[in-house]
């Protein structure tokens, strides 16, 4: 059966067109426009669209794994370092190491971006970037606000304290961003990991004493469960 539409003729069998595997990447099999139009079937059009979009998405997934692993390890490691320093060498002031961690993370991202497989940023990649950028802004903002409030209060009233459970606020935000990211890239496992990580860290906060250095370890749990594990899963998926 042959369909005639406008000035195009399409054969109904699926192998009639010249669509090259993977939309012709590197094939060097050039066709002029007239040849393409005369032989390009409906099935081949759909196949070309599907293959191009799938390839683009797999690049996104592959590129999304490494940053998760890097940030996950950084968060977990910083959390453990702060815990020991807080417990044995001073106090909560070591929490300022989070800023150093952010700087190290940004540096890692800069070098990773330079060595990354040459590909344009996708719409989904851009959305993911924005989600985590806003998480960073909110987390840093809340953290800075608490410390500013603490310094002002202690300047006015020596010995005053600021009562805001920063660890709970930031861990909830982190879990939420992870769950949203999983939904955006259509990977349930990431959303599930984020939910489990948030539940575990909240449980940890409930059982650990208020104001104790042990509470900071909830970020080690979060970093590992919500970032490192999903990152490894994505990396394996992209490497297939």
């Amino acid at each position: 059966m042959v369909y005639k539409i406008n000035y195009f003729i399409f054969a109904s069998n699926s192998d009639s067109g010249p669509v090259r595997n993977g939309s012709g990447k590197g094939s060097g099999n050039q066709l002029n426009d007239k040849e393409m139009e005369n032989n390009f079937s409906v099935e081949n059009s759909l196949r070309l669209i599907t293959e191009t979009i799938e390839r683009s998405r797999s690049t996104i997934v592959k590129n999304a794994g490494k940053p998760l692993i890097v940030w996950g390890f950084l968060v977990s490691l910083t959390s453990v370092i702060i815990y020991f320093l807080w417990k044995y060498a001073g106090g909560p002031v070591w929490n300022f190491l989070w800023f150093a961690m952010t700087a190290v993370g940004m540096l890692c991202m800069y070098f990773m971006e330079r060595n990354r497989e040459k590909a344009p940023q996708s719409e989904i990649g851009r959305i993911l970037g924005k989600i985590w950028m806003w998480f960073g802004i909110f987390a840093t903002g809340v953290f800075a606000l608490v410390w500013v409030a603490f310094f002002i209060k202690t300047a006015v009233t020596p010995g005053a304290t600021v009562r805001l459970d920063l660890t709970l606020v930031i861990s909830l935000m982190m879990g939420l961003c992870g769950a949203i990211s999983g939904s955006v890239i259509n990977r349930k496992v990431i959303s599930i990991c984020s939910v489990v990580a948030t539940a575990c860290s909240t449980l940890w906060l409930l059982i650990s004493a208020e104001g104790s250095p042990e509470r900071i370890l909830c970020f080690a749990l979060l970093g590992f469960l919500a970032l490192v594990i999903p990152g490894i899963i994505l990396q394996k998926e992209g490497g297939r």
Partner: protein
Amino acid sequence: MGEGEKLFKPLDPLLHSELRLAVMSILLEASEADFVYLKSETGATSGNLSVQIDKLQQAGYIEVSKGFKGKMPQTVCRITDQGRSAFAAYVEALRSYIGK
């Protein structure tokens, strides 16, 4: 008018070309893509790709901006809202064929 023309939606002739469709599919996923990337992904020659990009730009389906990346000239393509609508209509028309 033939029977086929009554039953099936007409396909946008501008999109029903292998290279132009590949370019539009890439731009649909990517927020923007430069000429070098489009060339490597499609396997097209610079001349052919240039001509097809020009056609898509003239139809208002994509925007093309020329600039520099470091000292190298760079041509960046972006899909427009009109391009997205045309692509959606094209896929819808394709479905009318497959569904029959």
